[in-house]
C-alpha cells in the first residue's frame, strides 16, 4: 500500500469522461481529490492523492496517460529557495493545510511537502521571491 499525490490535467475532449471512477473500479485505488478546477477554456486540472498497490498505481498512471491525461508528480511542484528565504513566516499565515510552518524552537521555515495541496496561495506573498512553482 503506497500513497502518491498527482496533478492531473484533462484536455477539453476528455473532460466529461468518468476517469476517477475508472481508478476505483479498474485499479482498486482509494483517492482523495484535494483540488479540482475547470478553466474557462474547458481544461480540467485536479490534484489527487492515490492510495493503493504500487503496481496498480503504475497501471493507473499508464491508463491515464493513454487516455490523454497529463500526469505530474505533485510534491515536486512547490520549491522553497532556502538561499533567498529570510524565515519571516508570512507564508505560514496563508497555508491552509499548514504545510508551511515555523519551527517552534529555531523559528525557521519548514515545508512539509506531504501536506501541500498546491493551492498556490503562498506564491505571490513572499517578499523575497523564495517560493516558486517547479513545472
Amino acid at each position, binding site marked *: 500500500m503506497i500513497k502518491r499525490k498527482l496533478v492531473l490535467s484533462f484536455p477539453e475532449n476528455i473532460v466529461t469522461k468518468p476517469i476517477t471512477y475508472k481508478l476505483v473500479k479498474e485499479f482498486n485505488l482509494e483517492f482523495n481529490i484535494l483540488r479540482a478546477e475547470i478553466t474557462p477554456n474547458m481544461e480540467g486540472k485536479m490534484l489527487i492523492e492515490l492510495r493503493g498497490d504500487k503496481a496498480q498505481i503504475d497501471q493507473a498512471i499508464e491508463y491515464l496517460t493513454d487516455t490523454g491525461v497529463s500526469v505530474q508528480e505533485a510534491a515536486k511542484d512547490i520549491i522553497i529557495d532556502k538561499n533567498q528565504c*529570510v*524565515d*519571516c*513566516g*508570512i*507564508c*505560514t*499565515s*496563508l*497555508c491552509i493545510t*499548514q504545510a508551511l*510552518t*515555523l519551527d517552534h524552537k*529555531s*523559528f*525557521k521555515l519548514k515545508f512539509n511537502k506531504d501536506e501541500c495541496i498546491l493551492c498556490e*496561495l503562498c506564491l*505571490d*506573498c513572499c*517578499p*523575497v*521571491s523564495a517560493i516558486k512553482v517547479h513545472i
Partner: protein
Amino acid sequence: MAKTIEEINEKIKSRKVVVLNAEEIIDYVKEKGIKKAAKEVDVVTTATFGPMCSSGAFINFGHPDPPIKMTKVWLNDVPAYTGIAAVDVYIGAAELSETEGMNYGGAYVIEDLILGKPVKLRATAYGTDCYPRREIETYITRDTINQAYLFNPRNAYQNYAVATNSSNRTIYTYMGKLLPNFGNATYCSAGQLSPLLNDPYYRTIGIGTRIFFGGSQGYVSWYGTQHNPGKERLPNGTPCGPAGSLALIGNLKEMSPQYLKACTFHLYGVTIFMGIGIPIPVIDEEMVEFVKIKDEDIYTEIFDYSVQRRNKPSYGKVNYKQLRSGKIKINGKFVQTGSISSYSRALEISNTLKKEIENGKFYLTASVAPLPLEEKYSSLDILSKEEL
C-alpha cells in the same frame, strides 16, 4: 547598585563582560531574580529584522571631468533625489524602477552596492559655467564611489499593529497578502527581542547610541519620524501599538547582505528588510524589570486593513505569544497568523552582537541626548491657508 557604561566597557576590555540576549535574560531572571541579574548581567542584546520602508542611502559619486551638477539621477533606472550638491544623491529604499516597476527599486540598488555589483549611473543637468556637463552615463560600484551611508528616517518601530481583512476580496498591503473574510492575520515586531520594547521609556537608547546596523556599527542619529511616545502603555511600560521609532545612520560599505535584504510586497511595492541590533546596558534593577519582558507581556491591536481609511476598525488586542502560536481568535473564530519580521534572523543578530561585545569588538556608548518622551503626533488635514 548602579553600573555605569564606563564600568561595562572596562569589563568588555578585560573580557569579563556578561552578555545575554533578550530571550535568555527572561529565564535567567526567573531563576535568579532581579537583584542577582542586575549584579551579574552587564548587557542584554536586542534585535529586529523586518521590512522598514523609511530607509535609504546618501551617496557621493565623485566628480567627472568636465564636471556636472546633476539635476536628475537614475541608478539602474531607479530615480534618486539630487536636489542637494552636484554629485550627492539620496536613494530611497521604496523608490520603484522606471523600467521594471515593482520588481526592482531603491532597496535593490542598495543591496547591489553592498554586494559589490556594478550599478549603472545615468544623470542629466542643465549645465552651468562651473558645471558644464549636461549628461553622463557610467557604472559605479561600492569601491568607486566616495561616501555611501544609510540614513533611515524611521526604523525599529516600538511595536506594530496586526493586520486582517474583513472584506470579500484578497487585498495586498504593506502588511502582506490578506485573504478575504479574516482568512489570515499578519504582524510585524520582534516582540520580546525588539530593541525599544526592552527599553520602553528610552532610559539607555538615545541619540548617539552605537548599534549593530545591517552588519556594520552604526548609530542612533535622532528620534524617528512619527515618533509617538505618548501611545497608550501597559503598566510594564510597553505601548500597545506603534510608538517610538529611531532614525539610524551607518556605513553602507561595511554592511553585509546577511543583515539587510531588498524585497517586494506584491502589488504594494519595494521595501527593505533591515537587521538592527541594540545593546542595552543593565545599569540598575529597574533596567532588569524592563529587559525581562516576554512575548506574553507585550500586546498589540488587530486592525481591519480592508477599510481604506486612516482610522481602521479594531478587533481587539492580542499578545505576541498568541500571535507566534500561529493562530489567534477574531470574532470567536480561529485565524492563522504570520509574521512579517523574521524572529529567527533577529535572534541571530542578537547573538552576533553578543559575540562582538564578548570579543571586545563592540563597545557601548552613553547616549548624547535622550529621545523625547513627549512628542506631538499629527495627521495631515486638507486645509486652506485661512483654516490653518
